[in-house]
């Protein structure tokens, strides 16, 4: 097992490097910080806060899906379409239950 656990030359430094994870993590933290700041401090006009933080959350979700969870629009077209359908139906459900009562 010891021998097996050593990474080989070809694998390190391939496109699947850890760097992109760290970069997108930094971006997520940034988005989160902006959302918290928008709520905690009075820097955004009153009516814009909720739309802004919702958009930030949506961006963050797509970051998760396509970097951390390795979704690929071309290779996993079926998975992506099921996931997008799920998100769409989820949004419809949540909005309807929240509003139409």
């Amino acid at each position: 097992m010891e021998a097996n656990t050593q990474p080989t030359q070809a694998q390190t430094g391939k496109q699947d490097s850890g760097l992109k994870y760290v970069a997108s993590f930094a971006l997520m933290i940034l988005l989160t910080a902006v959302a918290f700041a928008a709520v905690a401090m009075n820097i955004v006009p009153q009516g814009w806060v909720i739309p802004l933080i919702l958009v930030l959350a949506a961006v963050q979700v797509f970051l998760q899906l396509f970097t951390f969870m390795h979704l690929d629009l071309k290779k996993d077209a079926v998975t992506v379409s099921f996931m997008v359908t799920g998100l769409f139906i989820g949004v419809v459900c949540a909005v309807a239950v929240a509003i139409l009562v």
Partner: protein
Amino acid sequence: MATIVVLIVFALFLGAILTGGYNKQMLARFRSHWLWDWITTVDHKKIGILYLIGGTIFFVIGGIEALLMRTQLFYPNNDFMVGRTFNELLSMHGTTMIFFVAMPLLFALMNAVIPLQIGARDVAFPFLNALGFWLFLCGGLLMNLSWIFGNAPDSGWTNYVPIALNEYSAGTGIDYYVLGLQISGIGTLIGGLNFIVTIINMRTPGMSFLRMPLFTWTSFVSSALILFGFPPLTAGLFLVMFDRLFGANFFDVAAGGNPVIWQHLFWIFGHPEVYIVILPAFGIMSEVISTFAKKRLFGYTSMVFATLLIGFLGFMVWVHHMFTVGMGPVANSIFAIATMAIAVPTGIKVFNWLFTLWGGKIRFTTAMLYAVGFIPTFVLGGVTGVMLASPPGDYQYHDSYFVVAHFHYVLIGGTVFGILAGVYYWWPKMFGYLLNEKLGKLNFWLFFIGFHMTFFIQHFLGLFGMPRRVFTYQPEDQVELINQISTVGAFLQAVAVVVLVINVIYSYRNRVPAGNDPWDGRTLEWTITSPPPVYNFAQLPKVRALDAFWHEKMNGKKELEPAEPVGPIHMPNNTHLPFLMSLAFFVSGLGFVFRSNEVGALGLIFVFLVMFMRSFEQDHGYHIETDEIEKTEKGASV
């Protein structure tokens, strides 16, 4: 005290299982019993048969409930089954027929046929497939136990709150509904997920998406609806459970709750549900009509896209069940238009079936009779559906027998006719012998006439003002004759079902091997022996066109070209864990029903324990060797 006893029994049970049983001889006898083979099976063909048996048993129960109700309504002021008992009958009838009859019977056909139609040796998750079946059975049994312990669910199959809350429905009735559906719902979700992955990943070489038989296509879309439709039900059932068992306030207006939330969650699930049960029936009809008209299905591609469109629109129309809630004209209009839009793809399908029949060489077998009977019947149900989709009209029809007539036209005229057609059509593939055609035709005509007699007249019953779900009426209401005709029709349907049972027994006694291809079929399932060997295809077939088998027949060949050389076939091992896990769910459900949360929690812990046991198990299955395959194949051809 009772809790302690249960705890001790449970601990013993646990110990016995973890140590592999204290009596090895007993265990060995257990394992060699034929029942053990069925309990542990992961073979999709056997699971299909299990679903068929389970669904049929519940069909009989649900049918008896319907007959009792119709008997009560035979005379005005009858006192045969009144008040709460009648409410229990109608609630259990609806719930049973939808969840424990329509869906499992469709799952039976899907299990038996889909892997064969796409040229697969098995489903993607054999373990989960077995788990799905056992969960369905446990859920169904749990719910029907309520008849034995008294206090069956009595708030209708829609289980509207606040009627279904403790305040108005004390006792354990609704708890059976909530937990039974929760458990069987998990099973259904698992089953649907399994079929989606099977269809996407396990198709044989050459079987592209647009070469898949239509039954596979509609089952695929129906499974996708299950995938996204059942979670809202799960969520809603959790809310009702928390309200009833743990004192939550989701629906209690006094504590700020809102009962409309349940209606939304239920119908967000409930409307896709009717498409879940009708789409596979559409698929069966397409297969049957194209086979017995000896023609390629007219407009195959448009059929596929119509199916997808129905599936998508099916999610966007649930509010038409709630027009009278009072959400305002804007919401009602939007959902009314969306609802009417569904008539377009459905119409496409109806015309495609008619054009397939046009100029075909039609053989009126029993399956074909059901398919041909289905078309006008379903159109009737569809037309009343469009009537109900218009909010002003709906305010008039709402909660009357018109609605009852409408959904029975769709569910019986659509789904049940579809299932019966499918059963007659695929019976030889599942069991190796044909059902008797003469008895089959008798069965069809009795059922067809009985059905229309029962429900056609109920349209007028509704228009004359009889509300649904009432247990009696007055002589001066002048609906006696109509009710009596309807009741006679219901008994005619019961006779038809008896004929079907006789047919199964008679055909079994006088069985002759049906051979691979009794109907001169067009799709892959007819290329292999009936019933198929455990591995289905000795060599995976190479598909070269839509209606792959027919394509080869037209090119003068008797069978499909193999896509691979003969080699050892990998098969999954049987396992008893799905059964055990479902049993634990059952115990947990029963615990919660009896308000013994310790037992409920213990059951759940046991569920997770089995899950981890499964995770640690290294089960790589086994291989069927080449010489054994050759022997089986030779035996089959002789």
